[in-house]
């Protein structure tokens, strides 16, 4: 694993509002990393720091070992970026735009370009200005991957795509991971899609990193317990530190805990109850990830 991006005490302010607040983060790859967070929490701002479009007010953002203000040709030819709001040159056709952007990079894989044009169903003769938002996203994706970037950044790349195209795209990202040994950072609200392919998850809330962990570890440690007491009512409240949320009613309770088999056993023993654990998927976990402390 090598480090592709590092943020140290990264702070960014706009009009007096602090969007990123002392972020400390390291992205290592090859891997697929999911960047999650609510609207306006700073995901896009962070991604723009990675690409060097934004400069930090305080702290540092280092991509491929180079600070963001010094990012140059050598680093940027290895980065692919799919922005959330795609703005391309409207007067060109898809084909011309692809030709134009291909001259930015030393190597352009026309085979991959054709494969994607076919699989995402994009017509090369359409005018970019007339493309629907979904097709614009498709074009933006093709523009970002055909030069085999080592670091691929996708900011809400699937929001306008239909389910079939979405699943094709996610499959393709797995290919990119393997073929190019790329580090892929994907920021998306569609957690179901993200969950299928990411191995690492970073969660940002209100400018701070609240989670930075391997997805499997999170799944194993964040569980919902259904508690059943066969011997009388349960106490009014459970005071174990690892309990994040509790709902108690008579002889039953529903707890959300941060723990695993060991905690479960000791809990059952301590309170003379039976517990049925239910694992939580990413969408279930999301509100908890926002609360912080998952690193």
């Amino acid at each position, binding site marked *: 694993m090598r480090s592709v991006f590092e943020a140290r005490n990264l702070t960014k302010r706009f009009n007096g509002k602090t969007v990123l607040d002392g972020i400390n983060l390291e992205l290592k790859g090859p891997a697929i990393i999911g960047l999650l967070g609510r609207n306006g929490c700073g995901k896009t701002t962070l991604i723009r720091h990675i690409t060097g479009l934004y400069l930090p007010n305080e702290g540092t953002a280092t991509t491929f070992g180079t600070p963001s203000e010094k990012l140059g040709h050598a680093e940027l030819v290895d980065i692919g970026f799919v922005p959330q709001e795609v703005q391309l040159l409207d007067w060109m056709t898809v084909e011309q735009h692809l030709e134009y952007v291909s001259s930015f990079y030393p190597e352009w894989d026309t085979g991959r370009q054709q494969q994607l044009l076919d699989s995402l169903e994009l017509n090369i003769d359409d005018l970019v200005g007339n493309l629907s938002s979904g097709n614009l996203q498709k074009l933006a994706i093709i523009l970002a991957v055909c030069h085999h970037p080592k670091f691929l950044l996708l900011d809400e790349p699937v929001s306008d795509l239909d389910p079939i195209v979405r699943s094709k795209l*996610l499959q393709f990202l797995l290919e990119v991971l393997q073929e190019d040994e790329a580090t892929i950072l994907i920021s998306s609200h569609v957690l179901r899609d993200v969950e299928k392919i990411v191995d690492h998850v970073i969660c940002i809330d209100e400018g701070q990193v609240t989670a930075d962990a391997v997805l499997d570890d999170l799944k194993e440690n964040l569980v919902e317990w259904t508690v059943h007491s066969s011997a009388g009512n349960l106490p009014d409240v459970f005071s174990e530190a690892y309990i994040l949320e509790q709902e108690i009613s008579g002889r039953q309770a529903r707890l959300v805990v941060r723990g695993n088999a060991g905690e479960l056993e000791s809990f059952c023993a301590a309170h003379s109850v039976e517990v049925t654990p239910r694992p939580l998927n990413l969408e279930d976990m999301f509100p908890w990830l926002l609360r912080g402390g998952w690193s």
Partner: protein
Amino acid sequence: MILVVDAHSGIPVYRQIVEQLRFQVSSGVLEPGDEIPSTRSLSAQLGINPMTISKAYALLESEGVLERRPGLPLVVRRQGRASERSSKLEQLEHALRPVAVKAKQMNVESSEAVEVFRRLLDEED
């Protein structure tokens, strides 16, 4: 080889793969010497991250279920009778645990519960 994984179930995908492969070995669907699909092809087949699959394979390899041969695909390892048996029983225990919890919650007598289980085992399809 057919595996069914649900990325949205909350159970880590690598664990699902490990459990299913263990089961397939224990139930004879996979026999010693059978080749396991490569990380890449299984990733393409299931649409999941190849690193997840590598993780599963590594775990199974460390448990002695799979064997790595230099330059060749992973194969199912022939296991000793004792370890085969203990593996099967471990899987069975894991499957029965929730049932046991339910039985305890309903205050069913152990002997009655075992009787139910025996009847189910003896049932003809």
